[in-house]
């Protein structure tokens, strides 16, 4: 029993924080966000690859670092903390989905190139063949679209999908609409492993980024309210401010507990993953949105300006929260799993009940 990062994990955290503090300041985030092309810093991408973080949680057999989902979550949280414009997350979501939901052959085909950052990929949830706001789809080679309990890998070069860049409120990342051509629908490859496991792993990564956004928003707030004075005192001394900051801490730490556990469970106790992943995504989506919104409020008028940096966090949190299923959907899933677990524990009820209580949204 040791519910804390190991020294090695702390080292990854420290390295990521140091790198991003130097290379992904808000000034550089702003530079990307305000440029029409939103071009990511390729040197930073090379550096992440150089650290092995493109394949940090991809097994060594597939050319990755062979570390766990927890190490990946640690990196994702830091990239969220910095609101870094980077395609790292899109690649990581796709890789984890393939790792969980692909067959052995599919993993062998797709993961090695992703593990070293030589190939690009992303994930979207589609409805009637259209996936709105897929992150980095415009630069992805492989686009995994999830619809009706199936995940299909499309080769963007194969002509089976159309990609239209979309502007969103989050200019720190590129998004695109992906449409499957009616004729090209058969061109993709169905992932034929367990989809749930793959989605769960991807959700944990997204949840980790959300937690990082919340963490940064909390830090900015605490610093600001200690400095900003009104009525002759730092505003952080007013309970209307300090108690809301305490609430920010509560939600951020709660989300962190949930993602750490889910990431750990993904590798160590996979049977606990479905419930843990749903909780992680729901808790982090709440924390990401609430804590960044509170940060804007507690910054007062300044927080509502483009010049302040809190809005990058708020905006990305909105997008992250909406990707891969909303917090409401995850809550419903938690309830179904809880009911199934209770059923399973009751005598005479099939143990399949929990497995049957799958996602409603995929």
């Amino acid at each position, binding site marked *: 029993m040791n519910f804390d990062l190991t020294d090695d994990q702390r080292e990854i955290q420290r390295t990521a924080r140091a790198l991003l503090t130097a290379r992904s300041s808000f000034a550089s985030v702003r530079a990307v966000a305000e440029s029409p092309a939103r071009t990511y810093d390729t040197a930073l991408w090379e550096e992440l690859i150089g650290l092995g973080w493109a394949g940090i949680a991809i097994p060594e057999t597939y050319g990755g670092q062979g570390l766990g989902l927890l190490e990946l979550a640690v990196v994702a949280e830091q990239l969220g903390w910095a609101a870094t414009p980077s395609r790292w997350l899109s690649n990581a979501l796709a890789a984890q989905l393939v790792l969980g939901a692909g067959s052995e052959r599919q993993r062998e085909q797709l993961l090695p190139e992703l593990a070293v950052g030589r190939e690009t990929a992303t994930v979207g949830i589609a409805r009637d063949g259209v996936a*709105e706001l897929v992150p980095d789809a415009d630069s992805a080679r492989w686009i995994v679209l999830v619809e009706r309990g199936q995940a299909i890998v499309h080769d963007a070069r194969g002509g089976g999908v159309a990609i239209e860049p979309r*502007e*969103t*409120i989050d200019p720190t990342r590129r998004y695109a609409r992906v449409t499957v051509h009616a004729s090209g629908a058969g061109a993709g490859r169905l992932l034929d492993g367990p989809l749930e496991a793959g989605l769960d792993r991807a959700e944990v990564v997204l949840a980790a980024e959300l937690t990082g956004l919340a963490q940064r928003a909390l830090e900015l707030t605490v610093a600001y309210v200690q400095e900003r004075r009104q009525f002759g005192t730092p505003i952080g001394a007013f309970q209307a401010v300090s108690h809301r900051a305490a609430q920010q801490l509560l939600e951020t730490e709660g989300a962190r507990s949930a993602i750490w556990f889910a990431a750990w469970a993904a590798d160590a106790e996979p049977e606990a993953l479905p419930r843990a992943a749903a909780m992680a995504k729901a808790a982090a989506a709440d924390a990401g949105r609430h804590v960044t919104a509170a940060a*804007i*409020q507690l910054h007062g008028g300044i927080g509502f300006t483009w010049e302040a940096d809190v809005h990058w966090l708020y905006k990305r949190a909105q*997008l992250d929260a*909406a990707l891969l299923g909303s917090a409401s959907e995850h809550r419903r899933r938690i309830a179904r799993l809880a009911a199934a677990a209770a059923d399973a524990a009751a005598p005479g009820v099939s143990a399949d009940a929990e497995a049957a209580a799958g996602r409603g949204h995929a």
Partner: protein
Amino acid sequence: MDLTFSDAERAFRDELRGWIAANHPGAEPEGEEASFAWRVAWQRALAGGGWAAVSWPPEYGGRGATLVESAIFNEELARARAPQPANVLGLLLGGPTLMVHGSDEQRERFLPGIVSADEIWCQGFSEPDAGSDLAALKTRAVKVDGGWRVTGQKVWTSFAHHATWCMLVARSDAEAAKHKGLTYFLMDMREPGITVRPLRQITGAAEFNELFLEEVWIPDENVIGAVGNGWAVALTTLMNERAGLAFGLQVALKVLLDELTAAAVARGLLDDPSVAERLGDLHMRCEILRLTAYRGLTAQMKYGQPGPEGSLTKWMWSDTNQRATELAVELIGPEALATDSRWSFELLRARGNTIEGGTTEILRNIVAERVLGLPRLGRT
């Protein structure tokens, strides 16, 4: 109790509706300059029809509308999705302040230009270090022969780049205690020494400005009220700030909720009890806002000035508007976050609602202290 409009009020509303239908300015044009010109033209049309300064007395070019008629005016504008007139700050704040504290000469000189939109007004109260705490403002007015030289910085100044006059509160006596020593000026925005810098919000739009003042000249005749009495004059302005707009904001919120309800129905989501409960909750809050605003209006008719209860409706509105935009994003899904979705703009804009015109924290203070009579820390 009677919640129906009187025959006169109904006639007022019907006449206004007919007039708006015939004179509606159409959709807002692209671009800030074009948009402002459109609102100026709209105000001139309103003025031509006698609708620009509905609540002002006829002798100042107004229609002498009652409080209820003013409420109807704001409701109808919002219902027709017509904009506020360009000189809204002059009409709602500047004029009424002059009527209470201005001299006859000042009223004669300034009121007509407000109504005609020939002179646009802006408000120079907030400062970077004096947001919620107005009495902490630092902009300094130094007495010179025949007038004042003003130096400092203001922020959150809407329309500053269009304005010819600024309602400016500055510290005219550095020695006096915090609330004392303030004077209320009318500053000519064409004077040298004024720099206007647009202030972009998180929506990407620049509704507000920063104002940098360096030795800006203001003649003595442009002091409103007495020198050193600026705090009292400013309170008159602030009191009017929260009064008029609630009815328009409520209707705008209702319009938004109806659109959201239609979107939910179109997506078959109303059968989802979770969606239905949240939508129903918002409709309830929106209606309670309307009713509470009318209760406030009744109280104002009975007792004169608007009371601190106006803080309640501002608080209710901003909270409900934020909830509505958040529900929209959840209900419509990721595509609501694309910039070409109106909901994404509404979501971001709504974050300012609990900050602008008195933060929710300050409003709660006001309710606690002035309505409930609770003590304030340090004053017990």
